């Protein structure tokens, strides 16, 4: 009996082993050259495609899809067919991390675009970094993602060589808003609210520091839970604080009802926020009371750049159901940066290296030195992986639409 059971076990083990091996083998086959000799390069995409932030997520996905289609149409890289694989992170760090693991496991993936949220980006960095799989985010604005946890004290250390982003960070976005409000709007008294998330708290922090430095006064601060929708008590406090404006470090699903309730409680001053308030959804959720509210966003408004006009035309021609929103241009540029890196590696070595790990590592290195004029302006990366394009704009809601009121480059005050 004993003998037989041992025998059974070992046979099973061998059989399972053989099956696993053959499974691996077959996957490698499909991963290699297929069809007419074109190599398939999959670009992974991670963004919130469902949930509150899906409007921004869909814009990112569609724009990346457009970049992939343009690259294939122009035959941008000889012998390479690009493909987009989109995953939904629902704005949650855990899901983002699972998606990162999934993308690393897929041997055809050579680069990742996304995510939208800084806290999701934080959770994906390590997984992708370990595999040397390059990640270019169109929308992560939290400074510590490229400059390390101690960036505020000037001790900047890059954590991951494989992480890049095409948007400017909160350490310029917050101060840029502060300078505009203090110098040009002559607002002196601020009420600050954040939602304790990586993005919101970071933005509120950099804004507060600069506003105080300029001589402004903070008449109150508060923190809210991002999932709450009833803010009546906080709203009463803010409305009676005598502030000139309220700065909200949060995203539009939370910020829109919060701001609406502050105005309902009697406030006549505007709400100001970061790029996550620069969405048509903010105005839609907020009804008529959003008039006069302001939001900063990274880059110049798309309709002022020639490269952007072509993007807008192509986007329209593709007939996507949802608009490209705040990050569409950045998502296009992020995808294009990966395409360019693949091109550089392929041209240098006559096609991509057969070894996936080697190819990924080379592509990640190549992204560091890409340079092209993209939808959002000149795209290139500094030694931290941040964009060298530090343009920002302030938008104000006028007549139910965000209108650019100032575009400039941030300078230390």
């Amino acid at each position, binding site marked *: 009996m004993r003998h037989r059971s041992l025998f059974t076990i070992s046979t099973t083990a061998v059989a399972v082993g053989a099956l696993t091996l053959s499974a691996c083998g077959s996957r490698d086959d499909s991963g290699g050259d297929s069809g007419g000799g074109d190599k398939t390069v999959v670009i992974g995409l991670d963004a919130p495609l*469902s949930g*509150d932030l899906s409007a921004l997520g869909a814009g990112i996905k569609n724009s990346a899809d457009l970049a992939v289609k343009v690259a294939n149409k122009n035959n941008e890289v000889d012998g390479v067919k690009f493909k987009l694989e989109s995953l939904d992170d629902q704005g949650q760090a855990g899901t983002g991390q699972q998606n990162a693991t999934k993308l690393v496991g897929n041997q055809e993936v050579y680069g990742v675009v996304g995510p939208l949220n800084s806290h999701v980006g934080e959770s994906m960095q390590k997984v992708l970094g370990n595999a040397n799989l390059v990640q270019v985010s169109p929308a992560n604005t939290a400074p510590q993602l490229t400059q390390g946890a101690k960036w505020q004290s000037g001790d900047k250390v890059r954590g991951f060589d494989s992480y890049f982003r095409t948007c400017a960070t909160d350490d310029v976005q917050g101060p840029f808003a502060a300078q505009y409000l203090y110098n040009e709007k002559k607002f002196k008294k601020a009420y600050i609210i954040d939602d304790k998330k990586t993005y919101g708290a970071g933005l509120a922090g950099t804004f507060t520091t600069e506003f105080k430095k300029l001589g402004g006064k903070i008449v109150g601060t508060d923190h809210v*839970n991002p999932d709450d929708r009833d803010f*009546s*008590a906080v709203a*009463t406090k803010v409305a009676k604080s005598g502030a000139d404006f309220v700065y909200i470090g949060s995203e539009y699903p939370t910020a829109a009802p919060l701001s609406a309730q502050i105005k309902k409680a009697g406030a006549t001053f505007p709400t100001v926020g970061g790029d996550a308030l620069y969405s048509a959804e903010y105005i839609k*959720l907020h*009804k008529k009371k959003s008039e006069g509210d302001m939001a900063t966003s990274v880059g110049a408004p798309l309709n002022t750049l020639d490269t952007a006009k072509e993007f807008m035309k192509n986007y329209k021609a593709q007939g996507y159901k949802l608009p490209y929103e705040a990050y569409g241009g950045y998502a296009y540029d992020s995808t294009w940066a990966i395409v360019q890196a693949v091109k550089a590696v392929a041209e240098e070595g006559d096609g991509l290296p057969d070894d996936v790990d080697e190819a990924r590592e080379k592509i990640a290195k190549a992204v560091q030195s890409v340079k092209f004029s993209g939808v959002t302006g000149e795209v290139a990366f500094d030694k931290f992986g941040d964009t060298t394009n530090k343009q920002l704009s302030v938008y104000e809601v006028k007549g139910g639409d965000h209108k650019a009121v100032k575009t400039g480059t941030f300078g230390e005050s």
Partner: protein
Amino acid sequence: MNDLPDQLANGLALGALYGLIAIGYTMVYGIVQLINFAHGEIFMIGGFGALTAWLWLPAGTSLTLALPLMILLGVVCAVLVGVGAERFAYRPLRGGPRLSPLITAIGLSLALQQAIWAFYPDAKKARPFPQFEGGDFDLGFVSIAREDLFIYVAALVCMLTLGLFVSKTRTGRAMQATSQDPDTAKLMGVNTDRIIVMAFAIGAAFAAVAAIAQGFKTGEVQFRMGFIAGLKAFTAAVLGGIGNIYGAMVGGLVLGVGEAMAIAYIGNVPGMEQFGGGSWKDVWAFALLILVLLIRPQGILGERVTDRA
């Protein structure tokens, strides 16, 4: 402290809303000893029902005219789902182990939430809810928002009707009897199945009214709105003494006012600055719950019953 009346008004509105939802928990618990965790989702479906009615009406209809229809459709949707849940999810498990219906309730809650997420048009993000036109009613010392007025009136009307119904009508008394002893009630000729359905239906109807109130208050309905609201209402029901309908309302009001006060004033206490504000209100709400349960384990208006847990 000049904003105390306003903060009290905020707290009372929030509390009345919690109380309206809590009645659903407390009635069902009082009669079948089941904590219906899907109640938060029934609340959410009431909100979507009302939104559907609003979208059906031609654009530009005055909200005051639309309101009765919105309430009607919201209540009908919520009651259908509530009664359906009782009939198909809970009744087959009645008499089984206590944990089975509880787990079914959690499963049902997830299923309903995802059903709205998947099938209601554009519900993957928050849907804007109509708003009252016009400003607040200024009474001099306090200003009352129009949507808060709706909550006050709705809660008052609902409570009075329910109180009269339970104490004066034949069905209401049958309900009390079933709650005290279902077996004996059955022997006395009470159709307990019908009574249980009634409890679910009334709870669902009140939840739908609360959902409309919350829609007005926050300007949106979304598929996840039932989770936090349900949790808070359940807390309110326990705080007030689960099984007691007046307790549910009292618990709701205490919780709502407590939250508003915590947001407004805890930060002003020297040394407590970092514990004030919107992000700590839940901590204070649950601290209040623990405190009340330490002194009165049966809740504010609850009766001491030995065999219930």
